[in-house]
């Protein structure tokens, strides 16, 4: 009887059998890589804003405290976006004719908010509270990155659940003394683990990883 298949079918069948298992493994990781990549998370991608506001200039160079603009960060879940009046406290006096600040003045004249582009967006099914993090010794730059070095602001982290859990499972890796929370130049010391473990105990930080901690 004549052969049904050509001799090369042997090779093809081996390739497909082994290839299937390879594909299964690789196929599991490809979505993982894509989902965690800046392409999806937009981490480290500077956002274009209506006014090219520079955190670098205002914080590192001028030394304005975070809370001057983000006023509710210590009391509220939301850190607060400054109203145009906050900008105008200075910019009614300095750079008051600068063309790039025209949207700010226009907003002030017309009493309409500037439409800033959101940089760090958590999904709506996540309950997040700034005040408790600040109160327990988590610094602004821990999550928001080297804000003093950002001419245009970008999100430093992916805000993926894996990133949240990383710290919620091991807060000692990130906690800092409370008086350093708003420092933009703070660097974790060499003995961070030792210090962190001490502070976790002192600040009574519990490793909260229940589902309902964030998904209420």
């Amino acid at each position, binding site marked *: *009887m004549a052969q049904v*298949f050509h001799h090369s079918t042997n090779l093809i069948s081996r390739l497909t059998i082994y290839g299937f298992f390879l594909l299964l493994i690789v196929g599991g990781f490809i979505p993982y890589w894509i989902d965690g990549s800046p392409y999806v998370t937009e981490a480290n991608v500077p956002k274009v804003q209506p006014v090219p506001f520079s955190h670098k200039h205002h914080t590192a160079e001028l030394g304005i405290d975070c809370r001057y603009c983000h006023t509710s960060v210590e009391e509220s879940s939301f850190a607060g976006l400054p109203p145009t009046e906050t900008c105008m406290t200075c910019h009614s006096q300095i750079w008051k004719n600068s063309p790039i600040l025209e949207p700010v003045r226009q907003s002030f004249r017309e009493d309409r908010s500037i439409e800033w582009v959101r940089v760090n967006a958590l999904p709506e099914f996540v309950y997040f509270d700034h005040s408790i993090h600040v109160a327990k010794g988590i610094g602004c730059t821990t999550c928001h990155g080297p804000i003093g070095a950002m001419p245009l602001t970008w999100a430093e982290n992916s805000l993926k659940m894996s990133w949240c859990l990383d710290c919620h499972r091991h807060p000692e890796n990130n906690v800092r003394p409370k008086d350093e929370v708003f420092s933009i130049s703070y660097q974790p010391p060499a003995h961070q683990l030792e210090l962190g473990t001490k502070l976790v105990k002192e600040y009574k930080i519990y490793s909260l990883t229940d589902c309902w901690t964030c998904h209420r």
Partner: protein
Amino acid sequence: MESDPLEGAAEISQPRVIEPGYTISTVTDKISSIVLGQRQRPGWFLGFGVSFLLLMMLLYAVTVLFAIGVGIWGVNIPVGWGFAIVNFVWWIGIGHAGTLISAILLLLHQKWRTSINRTAEAMTIFAVLCAGMFPVLHLGRPWLAYWLFPYPNTMWYWPQFRSPLVWDVFAVSTYLTVSLLFWFVGLIPDLATLRDRARTRAKQIVYGFLAMGWRGSAVHWKRYEMTSLLLAGLATPLVISVHTVVSFDFATAIVPGWHTTIFPPYFVAGAIYSGFAMVLCLAIPLRKFYRLEDFITTRHLDNMGKIMLATGLIVAYGYMMEAFMAFYSADIYERYVTLNRMAGPYAAVYWCLIAFNVVVPQALWSRRVRTTVPALFTLALIINCGMWLERFVIVVISLHRDFMPSIWRMYAPTRWDWMTLFGSIGLFLTLLYLFIRYLPMISIFEMRSLVTETEGERR
């Protein structure tokens, strides 16, 4: 196989596993002609058509379910597990007979299994497919069902490994994989036979592709024997473990009526019970329509009847112990649940279950009933219904009266529940009709060796 003279003597008194007068080639002709025959009987088209219509009904019900949500079903608090879980447990139980026949009876050298194991294994796979569908359907967001698997994810979260619902995922998917492999490996020599006998190019290619280059050399057979023994060894613990894990879904919960240690053994016995009932429900019409009475003899029916009787008695013992322990435990909730089963609003379901699963099957003690085909078929149907009712009793009656009377609520299935149940039977039958049309429903090469062996005995 070495034959013990005493064993042979015992077999003479019993009906044969294959009627005399067959040679190796007539066996091959008879079985392969069902698949390769030019024209299929009109009965096949009728049966397939009805099953396919039922399958389309399932498709419709599931589409509506996905579009609107589980609210179209009768489930609500406190009965959150309605028909979906009843059907899941029922189907997964039905699958167990196939594995028992193919794995355990193979290891125990039970020759009579040969002519029913292929169909029983196919039944296992189709039943597990039907079963596996239901847990996904009853999810609120079924498109996230893959969250049940520990896949690489950016949440850095595993499934809850302490939950038996996750063990279920592994138990059922392992079961499906092993059963599928076992079935396929057993099919390879027969697929090669079909490839060699096929007349059209298309059939040669399809069967040749599936036969994976089987030439029937001694090396092939040696490897084949080794593989099927290994797979049988792997499948054997699954007969016990899968339904044990399914019973843990209930037994680890604190719901009165579920929280009992007898659940694992009694679920396993119930699974084999319903599985053999389903094998009979399929084998009896098949042997009639395809004139396979010479291959599936009354000896087979008799043996399966005995297994049903044995497992049925274990199940009856389970019911008895459940009721006894409820009173012996002196736990008021357990007592209440038991009384509520027997005299509550669903009492009719409970007593039907006792009648179908315990009282009526006692007829199997009689050899005449076991060898009378219509009686056995009716009994098998009744037992299948009874086993479905058992799961209804466990799931619904235990849930509908929770600890607090303020949340007591009756459960009633909607037409979507019924459509999904009968639709899943449609899926099962459709697959089965395709199987008997395109694959040999009796293992050709095992029947050939059976012919040689019985010839040897006669000489």
